[in-house]
């Protein structure tokens, strides 16, 4: 890893513009109110595009790790600054690039929404916060961005707040994220207590001097934060409900960018708190594998197209987490998969949005079918995204997922095989989505007239699908991304070689093909019932999100309620006595003391006179001590 150097001026010095554009746009749109309705969406699109241009210009500068100090926030304690290094640039490019496409798509998708301006304001706010998160040069500012994306996510999930489900989902996302944030905060405090600073540079440099226990504790706390934000077990339950938000939100925030913040956090802190073989890293890999399987299983049973994709998102982020726990050998694959996933999952979500747009916002796949002829562009782009995610040879997902599986296999065979099984399930559930939506017979109602979406929506799909085809190969072949990221996250001792036909790779492909075949038999060639059959115990298990909510309810909510009741009881009996007594005491003394203010000017004069006498006396006493 390269040391971080101070930098000012030049293009890098102007990198704060990346955050400033969308932030200013959000402020204008929110403060401007209805006046900006007419052109609000155009400004909203301009901002991320402008940020993208800045990001590209930063990318084209000589590679290095630059710390751009902006100003002292609390002198001597916290500075506000940006860290421009290969890792943060990579993220910035993803956020602004994919973000811009999704903004453009939203012009069409939200065209009929009376609140479109507000929607763009929130999206801009999200982009600004997300950029702050990845560009921060210290944990405190990172946390600011972290909370900022949480806020934007909350606002956008609940964007259609007139739907009770959306309002509830927003609240759920917020509450579950608070649990994660609490962990993050404790980690933050521990970091400050241990190192006396929040800045990445000094923290990473001095990490070796801290005790092992402290480092593990910080690592676990940060991981809890990451689990909340990235919907990893056990804090995964909010993501499926978050699909209540408008589809572009699901694509941008709950697939491509925000949910990868946890991966970013782990990779960014990797050198200090998640070194290869450490306890914290092991936990990261376990969380990753568990989530990738859980997400995949949930994905198999969902009839709601967005929820099926959400399960898939969980699962794919599980892959990234797994890789992030494997040290420098895994980082590049984690980030590479994150980037390609950003493309193909955004592609899939926007495709799903396009389908919903055509189907009067119907989300149940059992009411789709045979759409491939009516929506050719959507079908082709969706199909490319599908091939990419299942790891069809030579498409993006093939390279990046295979890299993760190979690395995991090298590190621990159990992890590796579980990841392979996950890939097989991916083949099944993604094929199921495609077959149910685009193949088979038409199952929609008579008053629905599917049509292709306008070009403002299809062009982003086309661009994203092109990325889904080529990006993976570009990043992985000749280890381009790994070498590029090396200065920021470190390099493994030996650079991995890409084997097109390794045994693991072949096994993976075989399982994926098997999964796809099963899906074809059940959902492609066979008639799909319009009402979901009851299914086996396992199906129900998957449909109910592996009983995640029930588990939360049984394990956390009910005991929580009991605990609350107990606490309330204790509070009423014990604490309230003290607190209320204190409050009543203060209030009472206030009520009594204010009577001294009689309103008579002479009594005020008396107070001055006596005060003067006391002052003289006190001074006299002190002076003669």
């Amino acid at each position, binding site marked *: 890893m390269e040391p971080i150097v101070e930098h000012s001026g030049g293009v890098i010095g102007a990198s704060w513009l990346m955050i400033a554009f969308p932030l200013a746009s959000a402020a204008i749109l929110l403060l401007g109110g209805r006046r900006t309705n007419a052109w609000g969406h155009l400004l909203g699109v301009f901002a991320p595009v402008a940020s993208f241009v800045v990001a590209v210009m930063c990318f084209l500068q000589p590679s290095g790790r630059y710390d751009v100090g902006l100003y002292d926030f*609390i002198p001597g304690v916290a500075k506000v600054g940006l860290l421009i290094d290969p890792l943060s640039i990579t993220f910035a490019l993803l956020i602004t690039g994919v973000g811009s496409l999704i903004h453009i798509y939203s012009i069409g998708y939200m065209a009929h929404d009376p609140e479109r301006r507000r929607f763009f304001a929130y999206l801009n706010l999200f982009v600004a916060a997300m950029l702050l998160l990845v560009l921060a040069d210290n944990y405190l500012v990172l946390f600011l961005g972290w909370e900022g994306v949480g806020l934007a996510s909350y606002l956008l999930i609940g964007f259609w707040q007139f739907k009770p489900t959306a309002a509830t989902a927003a609240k759920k996302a917020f509450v579950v994220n608070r649990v994660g944030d609490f962990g993050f905060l404790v980690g933050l405090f521990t970091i400050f207590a241990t190192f006396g600073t929040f800045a990445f540079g000094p923290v990473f440099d001095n990490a070796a001097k801290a005790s092992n226990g402290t480092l593990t504790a910080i690592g676990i706390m940060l991981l809890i934060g990451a689990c909340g934000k990235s919907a990893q077990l056990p804090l995964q339950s909010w993501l499926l409900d978050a699909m209540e938000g408008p589809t572009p939100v699901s694509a941008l925030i709950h697939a491509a960018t925000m949910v990868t913040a946890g991966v970013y956090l782990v990779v960014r802190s990797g050198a200090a708190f998640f070194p290869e073989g450490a306890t914290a890293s092991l936990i990261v890999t376990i969380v990753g594998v568990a989530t990738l399987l859980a997400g995949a299983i949930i994905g198999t049973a969902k009839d709601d197209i967005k929820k099926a994709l959400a399960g898939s998102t969980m699962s794919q982020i599980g892959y990234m987490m797994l890789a992030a726990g494997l040290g420098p050998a895994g980082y590049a694959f984690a980030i590479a998969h994150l980037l390609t996933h950003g493309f193909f999952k955004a592609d899939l979500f926007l495709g799903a949005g396009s389908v919903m747009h055509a189907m009067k916002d119907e989300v149940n796949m059992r009411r789709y079918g045979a759409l491939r002829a009516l929506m050719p562009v959507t079908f082709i782009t969706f199909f490319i995204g599908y091939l990419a995610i299942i790891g069809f040879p030579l498409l993006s997902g093939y390279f990046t997922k295979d890299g993760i599986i190979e690395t995991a296999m090298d590190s621990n065979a159990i992890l590796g095989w579980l990841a392979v099984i996950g890939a097989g399930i991916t083949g099944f559930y993604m094929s199921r989505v495609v077959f149910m939506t685009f193949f088979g017979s038409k199952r929609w109602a008579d008053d629905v007239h599917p049509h292709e979406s306008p070009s403002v929506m299809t062009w982003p799909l086309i661009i994203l699908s092109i990325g889904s085809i080529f990006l993976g190969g570009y990043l992985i072949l000749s280890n381009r991304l790994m070498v590029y990221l090396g200065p920021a996250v470190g390099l493994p001792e030996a650079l991995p070689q890409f084997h097109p036909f390794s045994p693991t790779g072949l096994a993976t492909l075989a399982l994926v093909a098997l999964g796809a075949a099963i899906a074809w038999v059940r959902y492609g060639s066979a008639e799909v019932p319009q009402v979901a059959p009851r299914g086996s115990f396992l199906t129900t298990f998957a449909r109910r999100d592996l009983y995640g909510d029930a588990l939360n309810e049984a394990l956390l909510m009910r005991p929580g309620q009991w605990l609350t009741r107990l606490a309330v009881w204790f509070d009423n009996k014990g604490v309230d006595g003290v607190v209320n007594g204190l409050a009543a005491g203060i209030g009472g003394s206030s009520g009594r003391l204010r009577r001294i203010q009689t309103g008579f000017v002479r009594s005020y004069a008396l107070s*001055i006179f006596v*005060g003067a006498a*006391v002052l003289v006396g006190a*001074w*006299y006493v002190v*002076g003669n001590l």
Partner: protein
Amino acid sequence: MTDTITAPTIEYLLLSPLLVVFGAAIVGVLVEAFAPRYLRAAFQVPLTLLSLVAAFALVIFVVVKDGVPNKAAAMGAVAADGPALFIWGTILLLAFVSVLLIGDDFVPSAVAVPGSVEEERAVSEGAAHTEVYPLVLFAVGGMLLFAASNDLLVMFVALEVMSLPLYMLCGLARRRRLLSQEAAMKYFLLGAFSSAFFLYGTALLYGYAGSIDLSKISTSLSSVGGQDSLLFIGAAVLGVGLFFKIGAVPFQMWKPDVYQGAPTPITALMASGTLVAAFGALLRVFWVALGNLEWDWSPVVWAVAILTMVVGAILAITQTDIKRMLAYSSIAHAGFILTAVVATAGAKQNSLALSGILFYLVAYGLTTVGAFGVVTMVRDPGGEAWHLSRWAGLGKRSPKLAMVLAFFLLAMAGIPLTSGFFAKYAVFSAAVSGGAVALVVVGVVASAIAAFFYVRVIVLMFFSDPAADGPSIVMPIATRGVVGFAALATVVLGVFPQPVLDLASKAAQSLFVR
């Protein structure tokens, strides 16, 4: 030997901000005397605003031209040093925004008995009370001089020049005349009473040191040793006058009554400008003249600071009138600033504490002007709606206004990302580094109590249902500008405090001129 009188040297450039303000005030009086009634407002408003802007520009010009000066100008009568210039700039800024708040709050004819024929005639003639403007200018000039006076006589004269117009201004409210006049009388009697104490303290210190020059008092303290009843009584009695002006307990009684009764723009000016000026003078007396006596006065100021913070915060809790509540909050804030006044353990700490105080004064001044600006906007048929019950549900009727006020209140409570947080942080950290840890503990507890009543107003505005016949919102463009500016300043100083902190620490670097 022939005694010739040598003409004193006057540094006109250094004193130009003062001269501009006083000059404009005198011109304003002439306008009142000679200009026809219908033209006066057209003269007075631009004249007042322009003179304040010009004075502000001159402050900047002085610093830009020769750097931060550090000398006693006008034969040692007026100190022109970093803190003085910073305070001048602050007062001029606060006065400017306070003047913008002046709308139709003033009575058309002060001599007329409320409800009488004369008053009706004055109203129907469309008479406007334009002498408000020169009075404000005189008061501002007095504030400038008060914070920069380098001897006790100038300080006394400045105190009176500042206070006399304010006494008048307090009594000129158009609505609720009885309250306004009562406030004026109480302020006047108590102010005169306390300035008599100030003067007696001056006399005793003169008797002790043979001079009223702050630096000469300081030198005679170090040579004589400082064990003298003249000195103790003099210093304590002098302190009464200063503590009265900042509203420290037990000399705070006037503040709630006067703040409530005075026309709200004047309350804003007093709560911001007067407080700033009074702290400038207080620091000068305690740090320059009595600097060598620190071991004696610091326990006394400790006690006063604790009392002020606690009493201010506790009494604010049960207030039902928003202006009165803000007055008590102002008392508590004076206590918070006092914590940094005692933090004097060496030149470095002094400069740290001084810069913290300067920052606090700017931040608090702007926030408080903004808050009073909001108060002027919420109107009942009979005038501003002061009673808190009238503010219930304001968040639903006028969400933007309520949010801005909520923001000001949070800033006063010292929530991070507002200017109030850094202000409190600055004074408390200075107090800690000066060894006053216990004081800071009390300060934090008082802040917690204070947060209660700030948040209570926010809860009232947002979580209760608006009354059917709730107050109407009047938003003159100037007031809106003031409130917007104050809100912006509160945000900027909360997120990006560095430039102003730097400015304050630069101003505080060389401390006061001796």
